[in-house]
């Protein structure tokens, strides 16, 4: 489905020019001193894998520690796996083991973790996060709220998550009605775009995902998702269904496409799905979605959020342990190339009249510039392309995009720290991965080489 041809060479000068222009619009480090300092630390961590592993494990266990002393002990224990010559490890070990110093060390660590979490997690509750969402909106940045939660293993937990989503839709709709008009964020050529945008996770809506029979999870999640779709429709909000690992992919795709095709959802809500470019069969999934969009008449076009994918290590490890061909591309460049191919496929479909909207979710300037340049080459207006970033990782980027008058949305997790740990660890891993665009850029790589075709 996705064309295998590389980006038209004629597009390259435009891509480079756009990339440079966006880069120039990045706010300087002076405007965000703490984030800049954290970036520096994480860039250094990328070169010390054992220390990085120990600190990530500490972040992971922090909410389960009942006292600062316990956290201190964990720190000391985790640091004993770090090479002895690392000075940070030596000090941390000593302080964490001492009877007198362990509680203090733990307290300091807890403050650090909370600060870090605050960068990525907007608030504990939608009501508390509403102010920040309004600020973003005024600065030209729309949002999608994601409710962090513990894993759902019981029906009661699934019900609770659905109730939280319901409540978030209510609260956010009330708040958003008072926001000022933002023409760029509120419509594209296909029509109006809801201000309230909620991302939901199917694995939280059902404890019954069985990869060997997707229909079990579909049947269990359907009533809860149907309820949320009705609420979103009635409130005029957008509901976006996130995607996770391969174990749940078929369940999620089947569930969403089946429910959205039901008669009662023909007139709404605005809804969306996610396509992961790191999957080597993602072009087949794209074809399936486009075919669905052609066949199913709905009032608002389906939004497709194109991402690279956040479960790369998980998919690779699982495949290796099971003796499978990995479902993901094994190199970053392959994924980046596929991301561009899918971008062109989806923009091409949109330009050709298939009722879909594309949201390009990436922090890679090359990927973004490519999408923009290609959309312009198809004579599409800029507002027909949505750009998405992650809160905490893409803050500079969304300002740069907004400054260019582009339509940008920040993905904003809301929830408590305990529930947010899995999310936080994933984001930190992403931020310190050696081959990530942000880490490469933070380490001072040459912009032109970053903007070259992958």
């Amino acid at each position: 489905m996705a064309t295998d041809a590389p980006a038209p060479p004629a597009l390259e000068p435009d891509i480079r020019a756009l990339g440079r222009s966006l880069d120039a619009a990045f706010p300087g480090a002076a405007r965000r001193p703490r984030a800049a300092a954290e970036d520096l630390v994480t860039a250094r961590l990328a070169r010390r894998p054992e220390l990085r592993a120990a600190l990530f494990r500490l972040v992971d266990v922090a909410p389960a520690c009942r006292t600062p002393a316990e956290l201190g002990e964990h720190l000391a224990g985790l640091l004993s796996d770090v090479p002895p010559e690392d000075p940070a490890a030596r000090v941390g070990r000593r302080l964490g083991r001492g009877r007198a110093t362990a509680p203090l060390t733990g307290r300091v660590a807890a403050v650090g973790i909370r600060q870090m979490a605050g960068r990525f997690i907007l608030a504990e509750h939608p009501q508390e996060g509403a102010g920040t969402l309004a600020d973003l909106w005024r600065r030209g940045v729309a949002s999608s709220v994601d409710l962090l939660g513990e894993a759902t293993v019981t029906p009661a937990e699934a019900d609770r998550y659905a109730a939280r989503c319901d409540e978030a839709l209510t609260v956010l709709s009330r708040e958003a009605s008072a926001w000022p008009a933002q023409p760029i964020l509120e419509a594209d050529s296909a029509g109006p775009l809801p201000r309230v945008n909620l991302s939901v996770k199917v694995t939280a809506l059902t404890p019954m995902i069985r990869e060997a029979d997707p229909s079990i999870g579909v049947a269990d999640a359907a009533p809860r998702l149907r309820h949320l779709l009705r609420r979103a429709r009635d409130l005029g909000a957008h509901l976006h269904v996130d995607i996770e690992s391969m174990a749940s992919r078929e369940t999620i795709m089947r569930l969403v496409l089946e429910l959205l095709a039901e008669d009662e959802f023909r007139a709404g809500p605005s809804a969306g799905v996610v396509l992961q470019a790191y999957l080597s069969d993602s072009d087949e999934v794209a074809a399936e979605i486009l075919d669905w969009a052609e066949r199913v008449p709905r009032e608002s076009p389906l939004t497709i959020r194109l991402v690279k994918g956040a479960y790369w290590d998980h998919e690779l490890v699982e495949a290796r342990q099971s003796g499978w061909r990995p479902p993901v591309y094994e190199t970053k460049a392959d994924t980046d190339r596929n991301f561009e191919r899918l971008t062109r496929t989806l923009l091409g479909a949109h330009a050709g009249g298939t009722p879909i909207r594309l949201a390009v979710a990436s922090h890679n300037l090359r990927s973004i510039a490519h999408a923009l340049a290609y959309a312009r080459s198809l004579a599409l207006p800029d507002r027909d392309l949505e750009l998405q970033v992650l809160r905490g990782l893409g803050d500079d980027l969304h300002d740069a995009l907004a400054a260019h008058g582009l339509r940008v949305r920040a993905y904003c997790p809301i929830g408590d720290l305990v529930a947010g740990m899995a999310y936080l660890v994933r984001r930190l891993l992403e931020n310190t991965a050696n081959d990530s665009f942000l880490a490469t850029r933070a380490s001072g790589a040459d912009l032109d080489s970053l903007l070259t075709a992958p």
Partner: protein
Amino acid sequence: MTFANEPILELRRAWVRDGLRDALTALDRELPLDVPVLVGGDARRAPSLDSTDPGRPDRVVARATVATADDVEAAIAAARRGQPAWAARGARERADVLVRAAALLRDRRPRLTALAVRECAKPWAEADADVCEAIDFLEYYARDAVALDDGEDLLQPPGERNAMTYRPRGIAAVIAPWNFPVAIACGMTAGALVTGNAALLKPAEQSPGCALELVSALHEAGVPPDVLALLPGEGDVGAALVRHPAVHVVAFTGSSAVGREILREAGTVRDEDLHLTHVVAEMGGKNCIVVDADADLDDAVPAIAYSAFGFAGQKCSACSRVLVHEGIADTLVERLGGLLDTLVVDQAERFGVDVPPVIEAASQERLERHVAAAAQAGATVRRGAAGPGGGWFVAPTLITGADPGSPVAREELFGPVVVVEAVPSVDAACDVLDTLPVALTGGLFSRNPDVVRRVSARVPVGNLYLNRHITGAMVGRQPFGGNRLSGTGTKAGGPGYLRHFVESYVVCENTMRHGLVV
């Protein structure tokens, strides 16, 4: 060539599931299978023992001919006849035969998997893993036997030539269980054969069909008829083999009661005996998962559920007791209890099933008795779905508040029943483990490396799993076997396993002659 595990099926792909459905339909047309007594190339057929589908007991899966005392004698005679030549073929040739057998099983994976689904009510993923493990045993032991054939490196001072080599013991009786109807029968048989022994296989009476497929593949691959016999039947056939003075080694996997009987019987040395009977026994466990206060319950709860309820708890490695830190015990019980309602209790052939029926009516009755007794003694019993009628279904069960000394807390349950108990600390949990006479598998959920190190060094179990489920040992990755009364200390699928099927020979030659080293 290095060993690699046989890749398991990717059941999340629809086309893979379609292939298995087709295989099951094709198999159903062939049922019941006719399982003869196979001795010295002759098949004797007088079927009288049926294996049935545990989920639909009116479906006969195999009709087996029960081996008689004469069959046992004939099998011993054939083994005596054929074994010396088999031993003389050398390790490399025997290893080639095993690798060919692995290839045959690989070709027949869908059919064998379907058979394990039907005959033992193993869900697809578990049945597939069973067949893969059988292939792994063949491939792994083939390589290990070639290495073993090189003998050992000894010190060689001047004037002295030392050699240590291994030779087969002779005749092995293999007494196999039904819960891994292909893998365990295959592993024990392959271990005996590849080291040059004859093997007389007595499969579980519940799974003769799977055993026939295995023996057929080994014969087709080139194991001479004389050195591999199939002797279906019940306990008396196994007992006759164990008692037989010509049997050198007994390889057994099964219940503690039978295992102890075998060890007693094999330990009796008669005046006329020319050898001791060596026993390789893998018996039960009372496998506990310890959960510390810092555990991530998002991981621990599903892992406990899978370890306790997967394949209806009928793995030797299954979890039947959880020792959880009192600080998070209530939360764990609430979440595990809620999870019971999500378990799919249904026929093994249904994709996505969590809890299939147990193997037979007697198991169902025994488990219900245990649960009723615990409830009567004042424990709190919470149960999941009862499953469809007709089969030997047992609702997945969570028991709390049971007396730590009561049968449910101390005995192997071998069913979808788990007891959860709060403890003041991880060390208190370790104290509990120390009081148990069995020590097969165990688990620990903790995120403190110091605790992980301390517990790993202390607990007596043969296979300890950290922060994951405690079943599903893989050949070459987690050599499997218990300590204490759980077994004779062998590790199936690991280095050293084949030593149990051979005797060691050391030859020391004086190379000094008239003051000259020759």
